[in-house]
């Protein structure tokens, strides 16, 4: 007696049924199925129909097409990612592959997903569900591609006020000069704590961020910095040293040249006696003299 194989009767004319059957087979064999396996399972299936079903599944993104030494392999795609791929075509699928491989650093390509900071005029895209890396988004200073200059300005002023008041307190304490100077210093950690407690930032700022702000204050000529050796483990020390900042006074008043209209004149180079622009008919001088 021949073995009666109980087989699920498939309605071979229903393409969906065929597809579902292929999917079931894939699930059975998670490492992938070859064309042969499908043929064995549904011998009555015409090659043409089989091909159509496979293509349909591939285009829907429910099936992965792989190649090994013996031929083509079809593998079930991850359900989660499969749902995402609904509506995209083969090309996009390849792209998606690349993005996924790039992990959370993003990669430079041209479709879908969250556009991120474009400081270098190249749009960077990455997976929606991943947290972008700091170097890509620009860190705390960028929100939605825009450099937040007002935010930087506010932080700049707050840090300066903190250091200035600390220096004033030290000066008023009337102690010996060495003690006065040392107490007017603030470590970058102290400033960071102050800013965090102020709560003016909706983004979390790290100590490095605060140090970049303090550096801009140095370039403004309002603050000076020293580095001292600190024991490992002291709060705020990095690699055995700490950075100290303090507010300083300017060393000269605005110089004499800039107190005259000529020092600030935009057409200084064009001015000479007897010309269109000359000291005798200078409107800036007239304004300044009548001030």
């Amino acid at each position: 007696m021949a073995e009666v194989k109980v087989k699920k009767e498939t309605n071979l004319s229903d393409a969906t049924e065929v597809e579902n059957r292929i999917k079931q087979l894939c699930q059975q064999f998670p490492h992938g199925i070859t064309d042969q396996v499908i043929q064995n399972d549904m011998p009555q299936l015409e090659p043409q129909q089989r091909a159509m079903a496979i293509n349909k599944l591939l285009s829907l993104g429910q099936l992965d097409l792989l190649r090994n030494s013996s031929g083509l392999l079809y593998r079930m795609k991850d359900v989660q990612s499969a749902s995402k791929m609904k509506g995209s075509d083969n090309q996009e699928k390849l792209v998606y592959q690349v993005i996924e491989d790039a992990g959370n650093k993003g990669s430079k390509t041209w479709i879908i997903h969250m556009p991120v900071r474009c400081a270098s005029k190249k749009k960077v895209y990455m997976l929606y569900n991943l947290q972008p890396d700091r170097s890509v988004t620009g860190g705390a200073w960028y929100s939605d591609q825009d450099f937040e200059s007002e935010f930087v300005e506010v932080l700049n002023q707050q840090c300066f006020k903190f250091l200035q008041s600390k220096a004033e307190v030290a000066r008023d304490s009337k102690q010996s000069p060495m003690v006065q100077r040392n107490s007017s210093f603030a470590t970058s950690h102290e400033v960071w704590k102050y800013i965090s407690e102020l709560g003016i930032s909706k983004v979390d700022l790290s100590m490095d961020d605060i140090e970049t702000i303090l550096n801009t204050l140095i370039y403004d000529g309002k603050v000076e910095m020293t580095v001292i050796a600190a024991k490992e483990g002291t709060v705020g020390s990095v690699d055995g040293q700490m950075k100290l900042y303090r507010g300083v006074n300017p060393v000269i008043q605005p110089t004499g040249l800039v107190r005259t209209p000529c020092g600030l004149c935009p057409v200084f180079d064009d001015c000479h006696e007897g010309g269109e622009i000359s000291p005798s008919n200078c409107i800036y001088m007239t304004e300044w003299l009548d001030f």
Partner: protein
Amino acid sequence: MTAQEVRLCGLLLREHFGEVVEKVGTHLLKGGAQNLRTIIHETGISLDLVKKSLCVLVQHGACVFRSGRKGAGSPTEYQTCCDRILRILRYPRYIYTAKTLYGDTGELIIEELLQRGHMTMSGTIKTVADRLTQNMEEGRSMDYSEVSSAFFRLVETHFLQRCPPLAGAEPKDSATPAAPAPPGTPAAPVSTAPPTPESFPDCYKVPHVTLVGRGKRQLASEDGEDQRNAKKAKMDSQTHGDEGICWQVNFERFHLHFRDQAIISAVANKLDQTSSEIVRTMLRMSEVTTSPTATCTKPLSANEIFRSLPTSYNIPRPILDQYLTLLIDDPMEFVGKAGESGGGMYVVNMHRALANLARATLESVVQERFGSRSARIFRLLLRKRHLEQKQVEDFAMIPAKEAKDMLYTLLSQNLVQLQEIPKTPDYAPSRTFYLYTVNQLPTARMLLQNCYKTVANLVERRLFESKESKRLLEKSQRIEAILASLQASGAEPEQLTEVEEMITAPEKQQLEALRLHINKLDSAENQVDETIFLLESYINSTASTSLLNDIDGVRLEGQTHIDLDNASRAGH
């Protein structure tokens, strides 16, 4: 001698000495050393006037003469240098300094000498005494001895010096007055550098003078005569034993004083009053031991400093040590430590202080002219020397577009320079690094020229304003003269008010406005002169230090050369 310097010198000469002297002076400035005939021929001024102009210039030290370049017997050549003429701008500051240090007497002595150029001691004392007596109450007069003692003090502290003696008109004689050796003269051997006033041993020696008496008050009736005689030297029949010994103001000494003042006030601004007093003490102690071109003072021990502090500053010794340590630790490096003996040896770093002050001046100009964010970029480049565009944006935390805009503006004004570093020999733009940088010395020179132009603009505006209201000014002067004569001859009040009313109210307003304008322009000139002084001191100080370094370098190269020679001769 740049175009701006010549223009400013011309304006200053015109204001102080008149148009003829201005013509002769600017001609000499532009043309270099020339003899009398050439000057007459090229300016078209008569011999008489040219001679007088040259006399005026020589009297004030603005012009020097020496024998012609073509050898003995060739006509004398005259040469002007703009440095001395530009000093005229600083006269008010010299006079004010003398007033603060030596009172009214000192002020008048300096003023007289600046006006006359050279004068004998007796002549100065008599004139000053007369002027002081004029301002005193009736019946009182100034004694000559008081004025003499003020004169001695000025000479002691080197603010006044003898004019170098002229050893006749022989061309061969090298004893000519202080003259800068013209760089292009082939005939003048390098060894006979023109003598400075200090090279004469009697430079600061006060001659024995018999001068007894008191200042004479000028009577009102002599006013007219006095006006006429004011410019001529008073022909006194008395001799006082110092004929032929003329004195002049020692500008270099004043400049050292100004430099010290600038350093002290910078310390006071940056640190505090006590630190500035300590630095002032240190500078005072080194006044006579430090040469004017030195980059730092001689080392002073902490013990000496402690002893020399003014008695009003009663700080204990350990506190002084703390202040000195703070001064050393300050990033501006005003004071440096030179050793450990005597409780620590300290020097004042004058060159570095000047460089920092010049830097602060440059930063101030950028800040006022272009805004604080451009100033941030400027300071950033001064610190980090060379940066790419991207790095500038990142460090300064300025959005890319604005940073680019600011950098290009600074570049177009030549305050910032671009340095190209190619990766490939063909300088292709896509394969070249473009770095922004700031060079402090050339930028300072450029700003100095801007200062000269600014002062010239202010002077021209002042002259223009006066010229505009010339008619009104003359009218008011006439009315004042009428009033004065009426008052002297005892007129009635109605007559006086009648005359006063000849000037209408709007005219009075106009005169008042004019007066305010002129004062504002005058004080602005003085303020710009302060900037000029800082920049000039920095440039001169840098030039002299680099010259010393260059000389060392040449010596070293020479040695290597000789060694190579020997090596090649040693039988290879």
